[in-house]
């Protein structure tokens, strides 16, 4: 069993959803119940597999890759099918495997128009393959492929099941990401050709493990190569000023799409920084870091201010993602293990919390058929449980200690007080203060949202209408997320314990650099 798991566990997690999707493809569209069950079963099995993987994960060696499978793939370009996980991947893997079943459960009775559960669920499963694949891939080309696989299903989710402006939003999402990844692949290729082993022979490899020990790329070249990755990953994150696709995509996407987008897709970018950009190009990362951090804090403030200007609940939540991912990027830009830990924590926390917020927005929309904040109000009277959950999530999102969100923000700020050796302390301390100011705005927009939606009395237009409170699929889908927000909030060690030594290895290059200097 254990042996099997070590060889097949990750591949199973990656490809089982595709098997499910293939099965569903041959089943006629009319059999909706069957489709739902197959999708649920598949995602649950995948979740089970990842849980097993997590159980057999060697936590004492979370800094090194485990469950590694290394198999021929494209010999011609020396790209291999290498999958494996370490402490950075594991939390994100579990997050993904958890979110997708909740999406399926939530979908049980929430079908965005034009319905068609078959297509919708197949896309969800394909999406899962892409997301899980990205988190386990240890070869740049494999990583790239999975990174891109995610695009198509999401494009269709937004484009087919989205709101009024769905065409615009879908294509914008697609174009932005593709633009970034096109530059990213050029950077990967540059690495392939430029990286040399310590003896000075060209490596000609795409293996992240080998590349992390590579050298021989001139600093100026590194900067450009890193720049390509920066745009590629930065768009996905999204870092200001590449963020404009996000509000549109989120606003227009169906609830499930928004949830997946917020909970997992945005993490692909930040994960890329931690997994690819920093270990392989520590030197360039070091030079870039102050600028990344600058954009990150701009994002924090800018995202928060844009939130304040929103009249649409979902759009507001979308902009809050920009701000939150700013904290994650700030953590990453410090290039310290503190910061990276905070970043991974921030990714997980943001995934859970913002995912929940989008679920709530979806359920509000489903009941009220609008997300316009000024038409809402008094949710606590109309659907008190939902109102409470909204309040809870708002608190979690604004970084209340004791809930998951805090452990992404506070350590990130903590880390930016004392960034990696060689980075300007005064600059980062200014960033820290500005970032801390961002928490005020976060409180501002989230409570303001809460006040205008949950508090007060309902608008007259809802007079006499009855709204059902949280229903069983919603409970089923939300409970794990809510529980995790609390559990991680109280015991962040669940994440930090896993990530700590992994980020140390990720920062190996940066540390060597510091010693050299």
């Amino acid at each position, binding site marked *: 069993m254990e042996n099997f798991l070590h060889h097949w566990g990750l591949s199973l997690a990656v490809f089982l959803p595709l098997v499910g999707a293939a099965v569903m493809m041959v089943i006629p*569209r009319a059999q909706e119940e069957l489709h739902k069950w197959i999708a649920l079963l598949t995602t649950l099995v995948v979740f089970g597999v990842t849980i097993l993987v997590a159980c057999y994960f060697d936590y004492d060696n979370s800094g090194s890759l485990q469950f590694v499978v290394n198999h*021929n*793939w*494209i*010999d*011609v*370009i020396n790209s291999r099918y290498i999958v494996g996980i370490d402490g950075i991947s594991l939390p994100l893997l579990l997050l993904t495997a958890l979110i997708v079943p909740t999406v399926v459960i939530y979908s049980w009775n929430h079908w965005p128009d034009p319905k068609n559960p078959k*297509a919708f669920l197949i896309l969800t499963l394909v999406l899962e393959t892409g997301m899980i694949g990205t988190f386990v891939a240890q070869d740049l*080309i494999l990583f*790239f*492929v*999975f990174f*891109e*696989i995610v*695009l*198509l299903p999401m*494009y*269709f989710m937004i*484009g*087919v099941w989205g709101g009024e402006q*769905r*065409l615009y939003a*879908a*294509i914008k999402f*697609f*174009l932005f990401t*593709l*633009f970034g990844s*096109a*530059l990213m*692949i*050029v950077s990967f*290729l*540059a690495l*392939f*050709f*430029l990286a040399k082993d310590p003896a000075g022979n060209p490596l000609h490899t795409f293996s992240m493990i080998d590349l992390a020990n590579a050298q021989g790329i001139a600093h100026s070249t590194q900067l450009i190569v890193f720049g390509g990755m920066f745009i590629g990953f930065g768009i996905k994150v999204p870092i200001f000023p590449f963020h404009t696709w996000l509000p549109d995509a989120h606003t227009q996407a169906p609830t499930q799409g928004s949830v997946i987008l917020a909970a997992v897709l945005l993490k692909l970018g930040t994960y890329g920084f931690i997994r690819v950009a920093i270990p392989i190009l520590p030197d360039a990362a070091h030079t870039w870091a102050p600028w990344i951090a600058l954009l990150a804090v701009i994002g924090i403030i800018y995202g928060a201010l844009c939130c304040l200007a929103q009249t649409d609940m979902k759009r507001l939540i979308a902009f809050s993602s920009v701000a939150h991912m700013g904290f994650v990027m700030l953590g990453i830009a410090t290039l310290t293990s503190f910061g990276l830990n905070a970043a991974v924590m921030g990714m997980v926390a943001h995934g859970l919390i913002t995912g929940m917020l989008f679920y709530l927005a979806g359920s509000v929309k489903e009941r009220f058929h609008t997300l316009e904040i000024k038409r809402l109000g008094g949710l606590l009277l109309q659907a008190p449980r939902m109102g409470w959950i909204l309040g809870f999530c708002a608190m979690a999102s604004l970084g209340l200690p004791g809930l998951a969100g805090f452990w992404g923000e506070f350590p990130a700020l903590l880390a930016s007080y004392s960034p990696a050796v060689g980075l300007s302390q005064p600059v980062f301390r200014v960033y820290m203060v500005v970032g801390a100011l961002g928490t005020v705005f976060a409180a501002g927009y989230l409570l303001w949202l809460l006040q205008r939606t949950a508090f007060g009395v309902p608008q007259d237009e809802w007079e006499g209408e009855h709204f059902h409170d949280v229903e069983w699929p919603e409970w089923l889908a939300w409970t794990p997320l809510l529980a995790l927000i609390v559990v991680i909030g109280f015991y962040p060690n669940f994440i930090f314990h896993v990530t700590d030594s992994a980020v140390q290895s990720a920062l190996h290059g940066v540390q060597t650099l510091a010693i050299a200097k």
Partner: protein
Amino acid sequence: MLTVLGFTAPHVDYHALAPEIIITVTLIAVLLVDLVSERNRALLGTIAGIGLLAAVVPVLTLAVDGTDRFVLAGNPGYVVDNFALTMKALFLVAGYVVVLLSTNYVAEGDYYEGEYYFLLLTSVLGMVVMASSRDLITIFIALETLSIPAYMLATWRKRDPKSNEAGLKYYLMGVFATAIMLYGMSLIFGVTGSTLLTDIHASLGSGTTPIVTLGIVFCVVGFAFKVSAVPFHTWAPDTYEGAPTPITAFLSVSSKTGGFVAILSLIFVGFAGQHDVWEPMMWALAVLTMTVGNLVALRQTNVVRLFAYSSIAQAGYILAPLAVAGDLKTAQDALSAVVVYLIIYAAMNLGAFAIIIAVARKTRSAELDSFNGLFEYAPGLTVVMTVFLFALAGIPPLAGWFAKFEIFRATASAGTGAGYVLAVFVAINSVIALFYYSRIAQAMWMQPASDGDHTPIRVPPALVGALAICVIAVVAVGVYPQLVARVGEMAQFALR
């Protein structure tokens, strides 16, 4: 060995020539059957298809054999090497798919069927010959053999003024380009005194003189027309739009590939020493072609016309690696990149045209609107078309990504600034391209059917076959690119 009156008949390697012979036999058979049998029209396409597949057999045996051969003993003007075999196989299979695409189209329209297949096979013959040609005259003849039937096929819908116009434009532009090319060839011949590419290479050495430069540019322009590189692309949209759709598919895939084969033979065998000339030329052509193709495609409303511009842009990508293919190492990378791209491109584009044909059978239109709401009533076709579209856009895990990747790799492998800039151009262009590909996807998935007509589309078996070949190739290669990567790596010229 036959010797009459001091003439010694050359020794012919019939095994090496077998594909050409089989095609010739088939095309004559088609013509004869057409004469004999008035009723059994369906037989014609079948014969043509079988002939093309039969011709693949010797290609395979030759590949298994693996030795590079001269078809005429001691004459390096007609060579069967790995490159030639790869391209022949591609031409034959692509030709077979075009036959599948044509079956219902030709049978249901008002066409001369026998002659249609006859001309199609002749054109394929020209391509197959082109793959082996390492001699200016043979290249010229091969080019004409693949072109002249194509001119006529383009205008095959005789009573349709659009088809006439398509054929006329294609013909005139083709002849103009041929004329330029011939002038260039005459200059090269004048400088070197030989038409054999190996001799030309030896004679030219390295470096260049104005006359050589002029000759090379004019030679390449003739084929740049064929691959519809900007600014020699102008015929393509009009011709594609007006020609019968299977022929459009044929032009956009086979004919274009033929042009590339010629360019590759010329620059890698004949003008290998003159990369100072063709590298910048290819660079400029590549950038112009992909950019103009993509930008103009943005504004198209006719799907076929859109695909015309798309295929122009695709040609730009294929040209890109040639811009840095100067030295031996990068030349190999570039060559395999181009070969891989051509193979994958063939599958993607033929597949897309198969869908266009299938949809147009019902909607009688190739306007973008006619694809609206396709997902509602033809989900299968929609999904498959989506596969092709995003493969063309280069989204993993559909084959197109690997094709683009190979282009990136080849352009980056030179390690020069020009190469990286070109790679970035390709990157940006592939984003622009996504915009119009996704417009089709949008129409299919996200728009309601224009006329509210939701009767399902019946897809004839031949089209299903064509689609199956293409979609399997696209997905399989996308997931396991080693399949074509290996082929691309092997497909090198014997003579250099």
